């Protein structure tokens, strides 16, 4: 098997707060191969973004990170802050949700892109600006927006500028944290199409965080389902949609399948008070006594990982063809 581009092993992230320690990520593991897209899905507040930001090394100072984040040969968690900053932008780039707040309001769009290029390349100011113009064109922004400030651009344009910044140094891995969350539907489509097309052109790998299972079907090679800081399921996109294994994955899909919304009852447990047993048991329709007592360990069968006491690897009876065909 080829070496993956990024490998996250048993990632533990804790935030030390005045009210106690919060485990935001508890033993998350996954790998992304060259040219591959991994989608992380899950409800709000289950640690997806924190995992993404931890790969960039941009967690706040009160975060405690343990485990292993391996990019090619380098173990990023062992890097000094200075060494880590050499990966940012050049090897791994990130785009965020709410592009408006992610762009500096007092610097023009063009200069913010040029700055990203100049930060990682030895070049003159003029070269950086010229490169920024090319990037702007590549993400489909008209020439005259080069000197505009972020507040003069629409939400879609702002996200395009963010993408141009992220791609300025041709990174190998692009992390996109809900890149379309704050945009309206038609613009969402354009941005996703742009990402799809740029990913192919640059031969990038991608870690995409989203709430939208339609986006997952469109973009993903592998799907990771997170719940309360734990990776519940990690499987290929076909398996995920046609043979969803974990009860949580099935519940997520039930929400949008069919004509009416059928939300999952209950809410995500508060991370300050960790629940014993399986974190999902309180909301799970299949929960048995064992789920309340013992925490399920990850089990890997036929290349898919699941954390569920019921998991055997055989889920052929749980097809959801109508769900996928309705898209």
């Amino acid at each position, binding site marked *: 098997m080829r070496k993956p581009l990024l490998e996250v092993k048993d990632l533990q992230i804790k935030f030390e707060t005045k009210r106690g320690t919060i485990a935001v990520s508890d033993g998350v593991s996954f790998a992304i191969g060259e040219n591959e897209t991994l989608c992380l899905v899950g409800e709000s507040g289950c640690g997806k973004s924190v995992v993404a*930001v931890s790969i960039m090394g941009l967690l706040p100072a009160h975060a405690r990170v343990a485990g292993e984040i391996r990019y090619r040969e380098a173990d990023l968690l062992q890097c000094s802050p200075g060494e880590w900053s050499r990966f940012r932008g050049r090897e791994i780039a990130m785009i*965020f949700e709410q592009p408006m707040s992610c762009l500096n*309001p*007092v610097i023009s769009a063009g200069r913010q892109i040029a*700055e990203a290029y100049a*930060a990682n390349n030895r070049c003159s100011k003029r070269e950086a600006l010229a490169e920024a113009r090319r990037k702007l064109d590549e993400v489909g922004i008209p020439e005259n927006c080069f000197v505009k400030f972020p*507040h003069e651009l629409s939400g879609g344009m702002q996200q395009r500028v963010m993408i141009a910044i992220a791609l300025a140094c041709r990174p190998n891995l692009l992390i996109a944290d809900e890149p379309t969350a704050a945009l309206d539907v038609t613009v969402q489509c354009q941005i996703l199409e742009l990402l799809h097309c740029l990913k192919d052109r640059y031969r990038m790998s991608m870690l995409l965080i989203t709430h939208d299972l339609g986006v997952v079907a469109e973009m993903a090679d592998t799907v990771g389902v997170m719940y309360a800081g734990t990776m519940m399921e990690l499987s290929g996109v076909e398996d995920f949609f046609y043979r969803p294994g974990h009860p949580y994955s099935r519940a997520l899909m039930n929400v949008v399948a069919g004509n009416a919304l059928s939300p999952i009852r209950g809410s995500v447990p508060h991370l300050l008070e960790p629940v014993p047993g399986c974190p999902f048991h309180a909301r799970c329709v299949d929960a048995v006594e064992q789920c309340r007592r013992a925490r399920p360990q990850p089990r890997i069968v036929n290349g898919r990982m699941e954390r569920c006491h019921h998991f055997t690897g055989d889920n052929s009876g749980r097809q959801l063809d109508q769900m996928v065909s309705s898209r």
Partner: protein
Amino acid sequence: MPEYMLRRIMMLAPVLLITSFISYALICLCPGDPARLVLEAQLQGTPSQAQVNDFRADHGLNQPLMVQYVTWLKKAALGDLGKSLKSGDDVWDDYRARFVVSAKLFLAGELIAVLIALPLGIWSAVKANSIIDNILRVIALGGVSLPGFLFGMLLIYVCAVRLHLLPAIGYGKPANIVLPALTLGITGSMSLMRLTRTSLLEVLKLNYVRTARAKGLRERPVITRHVLRNALVPVITAIGMHFGHIVGGMAIIETLFAWPGLGMLLVDAASTRDIPVIQSFVLLGSAFFVGINLLIDLIYTLLDPRISYRAKEG
């Protein structure tokens, strides 16, 4: 933009009218008769009733208050601020000369304040919650709580009385400015330092700073290019507001160091109820303040492209 400035300048009229009326009323409410107080100062003794009556008649002080005020207002509106009751000097000339003296002290003090506050404030914010940050915060809190004149006296005691390094009071030699400027600068820097730190920490939390780091920028350009420009807006506002100190705000320091600026002029004029001087003081001071505010608002447009005073189209 010119439209906006015109509107702001027109708002000056009601401000000046109201402040000048209030100050006139306050002078008249104060115990003490201007005629007697001024004559006492001039004659170095008690004036006779005849002298007092003559003085009142000469300066229109025997007329009803509203008449006095309106007479003064008419003249002031035409640019004649009158003459000092006490010295007979032209108030405008005196004011201008004293303004320059005060401005020198203020600029020297403010320069010191900025030179102390900005680097330390930035350092404190970048190393938030470290030992150095805690030390600086304690110093700043103490400094803010310490009154300026007390600190001035300490400086006089140490530098002038004990060590004989610098002259304690006076005006004219370059050495004279050192102690009052240090007093102003150091006491002024404390609140400015706290403001710089808070403002920087506020911006450091914002998403675009994370973006800047995600680009692969090192910490220094992140701070200088992305954080500072946004964080310094409130600091610049505060520095701008400090300029108001020139027109009388430094009265205590000027009196302490016998620095013949506007603050001392005001104290002298107030003690003899020198109406034309006090009135001019209020009038020019308010105008200066409004002007400074306008200037700060214009500086905003340079710092932040989101702020513009152009009339909205459509």
